[in-house]
């Protein structure tokens, strides 16, 4: 992966000027590369990871992992059905897997009821969906390499040789 992308992936707030200093490229060059990545869809979005556990809000909603067994279709395989499913805004993530089931969905809803009714009314009745198993998520410890804890303070002394 291009170094510029690596840098942005770990901190999206860095400006083109700052990145240019780190990779020793002209600012204009870095800017145009980033523009191109955005245009090509390599960079899709810049976002902030929020540890909602620390907000102590009741309205964080619920998340569920849903295993879905489907019957693949002629010519389009899993892709067509996957798209019909992932276009629902309730679906936060959608993966095709090897193993005992086919699709893994992460569903977000305001409460258990919302999630269950999505599964019961939208997902399960779909043609070619052969079965679903729903796991409600109880606690998040780590997501996308990010440990969901307050950052630890350094234990180094301020001066050493």
């Amino acid at each position: 992966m291009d170094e510029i992308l690596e840098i942005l992936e770990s901190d999206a707030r860095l400006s083109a000027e700052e990145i240019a200093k780190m990779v020793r490229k002209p600012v204009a060059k870095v800017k145009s590369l980033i523009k191109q990545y955005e245009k090509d869809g390599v960079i899709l979005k810049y976002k902030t990871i929020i540890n909602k556990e620390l907000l102590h809000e009741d309205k964080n909603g619920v998340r569920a992992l849903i295993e879905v067994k489907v019957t693949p279709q002629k010519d389009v395989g899993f892709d067509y059905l996957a798209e019909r499913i992932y276009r629902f805004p309730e679906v936060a993530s959608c993966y095709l897997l090897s193993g005992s089931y086919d699709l893994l969905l992460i569903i977000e809803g305001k409460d258990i009821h919302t999630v269950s009714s999505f599964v019961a009314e939208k997902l399960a009745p779909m043609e070619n969906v052969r079965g679903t198993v729903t796991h409600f998520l109880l606690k998040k410890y780590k997501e996308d390499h990010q440990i969901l804890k307050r950052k630890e303070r350094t234990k180094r002394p301020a001066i050493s040789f």
Partner: protein
Amino acid sequence: MRISKRVEKVAPSGIRVFFDLVLGMKDVISLGVGEPDFITPWGIREKAIYSLEQGYTSYTSNKGMIELRQEISSFLKKRFGLEYDPEEEILITVGSSEAFDLAARTLTNSGDKILVPEPSYVSYFPLFYLAGGSPHYLKTTIDNGFKLTPQQIDQACDKNTKVLVINYPANPTGASYTRKELLEFAKIAKKRDLIVVSDEVYDELTYDFNHTPFATLPGMKQKTVYLNGFSKSYAMTGFRVGYACGPKNIINHMNKIHQYTMLCASIIAQMAAIEALKNGSKSVLQMKKEYQRRREYIVGELNRIGLRVHKPEGAFYVFPSIRNTGYNSMDFALNLIKKRKVAVVPGTAFGPSGEGYIRMAYASSLDNLKEAILRISEFLKR
């Protein structure tokens, strides 16, 4: 009370006052730290915890666990084509600092002249002095990128000269040497029959060319005491584990002092070090990449705010000149910490020719570096 004359003569660290000041302050941005800002990779920490759980709480062989010496031996062979016999030519020490002390005491007879680069790591000069030697500084400056020259080494040699100390990549300057440059040193070592104590703890943090261990140069393995450790490469400073490799005779004598003083390195640290060698290389590369970006950033920024700097080839230090600011090193550091709360180390901590420089460690987050540069530039404007 009569204190040993040699100990009495060792200059107490002239910057102790400065240290105490910094340690007593809050909300300081510190670029004064001589260790990585990464925490030891989890796999290595987990191995240490597991070892404790399994009851590894005993002494080990004086030379260190044979498993660790074997790992080091095969690592050096694979990495550099450098072959050391794990039974006879490798000694595990409490950090490479201990290894340096053992080398100094093993090699030095009263009056032996020892060549030490300057500015250099704080312990080289005093340890050879305490061992009874006459250390002699070889001065380097920003104008030649803080590098020794072969002529300089040759000219400093007389009939009493026995040891040449080299350290690359270097603390505090970040300077390092290419194979070609080292070959010139090897010629002098041969001509003058010098033993070379080569401290290569920062070897994994070499950015612009491949690191060449001095002992890999033709004819040099028999004349070199090779020192390395886990602190810098694997962010394991607090584990205190390092090693010395060298000719069997030297290692065996070093081991005598080691067994009477340290006995052995901590078994937990040794277990962790085995894990580091087996599975740590990915973490090393990640950390190196990060340091390299910060190096580019800080060198560019120091130039921009008007401090002359030599771009370091390795380690995680820059050693900019502060001559044009009107301050000496100590006053610069004192005023910077008092007025802008940024900690750096006065260059004079690393020998008298460190005057006119400060050491800044870029083993600190980019956010910290940005803020530090901002504060230093305000400090310079006054």
